[in-house]
């Protein structure tokens, strides 16, 4: 079990490409994370700082609608709001195309995989109005720049982000003894949603040793975190809870509540041994196998603790461990990994991808992806996608993949490759007799290509 370029490109990258060579060593993969993020410029996604302008505009229009003196004025404001939502929704489909295009053409595919891994770990999206389509911008600004630094920085960026504060109902949570709560006669108060998920999902993990009191105390510490369209993150002192709070036995916030206490508790949670174990296990399960080698997980956990959560150091342990290169029981690609790797194997020209209209993006990509089990931008819950392979090899999921494979590539590329060559392009040394036979025997190019993409070898990492 040693490093193999092809396996590295599939397992830790976005699959094989006819034009981009696979990596030559684990060090090459690790060092690539230090390269400038060129592909993000070629396939842009709106940063959240710009997305905030849309929220500001929405607020202004809502205000105009409220204050309108005549029905005609009110109607005009309402129509402008509808148009804003429609254009934002349409533009967000183009950000999805960029997400796929990056996978097809990047020289640093490990960054795309890590971005999706951490975006899923910190699942958050909008719940109404223009916010509904903010997920891509949240990932671009909070997750993507932080995937190879200290985990505590990633954690702080995700947890304090307006989309997360909104998604997990933190933005209006008020400490029970806050100025705001006192004024409201008990009508406003704490909401413990974000605090619970930070402990249970983002850091310690549900099997760690913590109590309802810890959740409650963390919610008391978090009270005050909110956002405004004009400024992004804000700390509202009138929502903050005065006095000390004790999380996992450690006391925070002796004076008036402030953001420094929140940074401190997040740092302590990030460096906790349970967090180290939880994250190492999840990374190994995601990239290598549903049942990763316990020695690998232990080594990753140790390195995490030694380096106070330096993610690049943890990735290094994973990539240089012999069991990372085992071909026994490989994972099944998640739908986005699979679809992205199909576009990479086909080398769909960037101009072709960027020319797809929003309605077609939904029909050709987003709806099929939802049938495969990944409703992009509309997660079922903050726990993200399942890691178990059994979740992806279902009749309905496989039907959706097979149908997409035989129909969508030909719509994207009128001149599909010869399936007999494509077997090797897409699968390399993984090509089996059955896939070679199917590629040769298919009656049309598009079915030949589709059968290669739907084959078990292509669906596995």
């Amino acid at each position: 079990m040693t490093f193999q370029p092809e396996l590295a490109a599939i397992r830790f990258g976005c699959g094989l490409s006819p034009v981009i060579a696979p990596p030559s060593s684990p060090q090459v993969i690790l060092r690539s994370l230090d390269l400038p993020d060129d592909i993000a410029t070629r396939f842009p996604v709106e940063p959240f700082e710009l997305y905030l302008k849309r929220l500001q505009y929405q607020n202004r229009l809502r205000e105009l609608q409220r204050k309108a003196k005549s029905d005609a004025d009110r109607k005009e404001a309402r129509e402008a709001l509808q148009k804003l939502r429609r254009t934002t929704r349409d533009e967000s489909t183009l950000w999805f195309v960029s997400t796929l295009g990056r996978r097809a053409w990047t020289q640093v595919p490990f960054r795309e995989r890590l971005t999706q891994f951490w975006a899923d770990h910190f699942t958050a999206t909008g719940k109404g109005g223009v916010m509904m389509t903010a997920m891509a911008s949240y990932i671009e600004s909070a997750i993507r720049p932080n995937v190879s630094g200290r985990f505590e920085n990633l954690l702080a960026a995700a947890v304090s982000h307006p989309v997360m504060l909104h998604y997990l109902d933190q933005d209006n949570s008020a400490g029970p003894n806050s100025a705001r709560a006192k004024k409201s006669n008990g009508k406003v108060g704490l909401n413990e949603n974000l605090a619970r998920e930070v402990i249970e999902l983002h850091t310690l993990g549900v099997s760690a040793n913590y109590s309802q009191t810890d959740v409650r105390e963390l919610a008391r510490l978090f009270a005050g975190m909110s956002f405004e369209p004009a400024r992004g993150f804000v700390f509202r002192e009138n929502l903050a809870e005065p006095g000390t709070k004790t999380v996992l036995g450690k006391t925070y916030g002796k004076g008036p509540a402030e953001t420094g206490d929140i940074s401190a508790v997040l740092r302590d949670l990030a460096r906790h041994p349970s967090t180290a174990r939880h994250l190492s296990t999840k990374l190994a399960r995601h990239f290598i196998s549903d049942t990763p080698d316990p020695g690998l997980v232990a080594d990753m956990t140790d390195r995490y603790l030694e380096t106070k959560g330096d993610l690049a150091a943890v990735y290094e342990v994973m990539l240089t461990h012999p069991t990372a290169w085992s071909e026994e029981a490989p994972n099944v690609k998640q739908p986005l990994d699979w679809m992205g790797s199909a576009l990479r194997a086909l080398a769909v020209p960037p101009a072709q991808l960027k020319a797809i209209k929003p309605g077609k993006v939904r029909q050709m990509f987003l709806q099929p992806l939802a049938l495969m089990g990944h409703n992009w931008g509309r997660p079922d819950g903050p726990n993200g996608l399942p890691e178990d392979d059994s979740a992806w090899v279902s009749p309905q999921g496989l039907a959706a993949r097979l149908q997409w494979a035989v129909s969508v590539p030909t719509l994207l590329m009128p001149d599909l490759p010869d399936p007999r060559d494509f077997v090797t392009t897409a699968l390399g040394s993984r090509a089996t007799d059955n896939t070679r036979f199917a590629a040769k025997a298919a009656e049309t190019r598009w079915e030949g290509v589709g059968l290669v993409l739907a084959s078990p070898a292509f669906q596995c990492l």
Partner: protein
Amino acid sequence: MTQPDLTRRGFLARSALIGCSLAASPLLTPVSFAATPWDNRLVVIILRGGMDGLDVIQPVGDPAFAALSQSGRARKPLPLDGYFALHPALAPLVPLWTAGELQAVHAVSTPYRNKRSHFDGQDLLEAGTVDLAAGTGRDGWLNRLLQTVPGAEAETAYAIGTDNGMILSGDAPVSRWTPESDLTLSPQAVRLARRVMQDDPRFAAALDQAFLLADSDGDPLAVTGGQREMMSEMMQDMKAARTGSAAQRVADFTAGRLRADSRIAAFSITGWDTHDNQQAGIGRALAELSRTILALRDGLGPVWAKTTVLTMTEFGRTARVNGTGGTDHGTGGAMLLAGGALNRARVVSRWPGVDEAALFDRRDLMPTRDIRAHAGWVMRGLFGLERSVLENSIFPGLELGDDPGHLA
């Protein structure tokens, strides 16, 4: 009789087309009630997110209730039995109550306590065990029910939707599908896809089922013709998948299967995690639930009389409304039952009260009975299961207790 949904003509066409072994297929078994283990039907709907039982079935007769709920729970609930009242968004189900086809169970929960995680809570609800450490793996209680019945086949039970719930996972074969899925391929591609999937038995098994189901939904799997015909067929499939409400599609599909050879179906409805401005969220979720139940009743026709629908959630929510007009994760909650197999309309509960001293952890509705006991008694009534099978195999560690008398 409607069971030749999978028609003789369809079967012949398929065998000629695919030309390989269907020996394990339920299609080779003569379709009759004798081939299925029972005549009664069970539908389990998992309400993911934690339904606020205190909002849906409001204990308006409990003097402590009003003080807990200011501005978060629905006002003007619909009276049921004088003590409990129904959330107004469930008004469409009142005719079922009048007809004796709606019940509720209150102050129940799974054995899950203290951590209040959705995901562990749902896993435990679907596993049907006392805790997740018992090492049952991904084995669900409906699957263990099938394992106790010699006549059960894959077609007997359906898991519907894209979320692949654990409740039906396990050693007994079950069917999985979602009504939005369809497949259209050339006859040659159908043959070649089978060959390609032989490289991995997991994929081969899933493909077998996908082909059978895609071919039994009224439009054929294999289409001869050029690219244009194929594309137009596929675009039509995609359009069909988007028309009407998701609830209606799932209910129609479920009813179709249960009218034929299936006896058990499970799917889920999301949208119950109402931390903030609860009335907006729970109103939508309850509307979806009532549409689903009514569509099941309409779709099942005469079979409704033999059907029980159980709606179960991972936990209830905090007794007090929180600071943002919603409720946080709690413990005890409510279960709704619907169906023509129920004996009469009623709310079953050993009511613990909601004054602070009576609450679990001084915050949540105290569970006074294991929700599994109610599901167990319903299954005992529908399928004639032995008490020991329920207590040892299906719900290990459960004390079944007295019969709450749900069924006629």
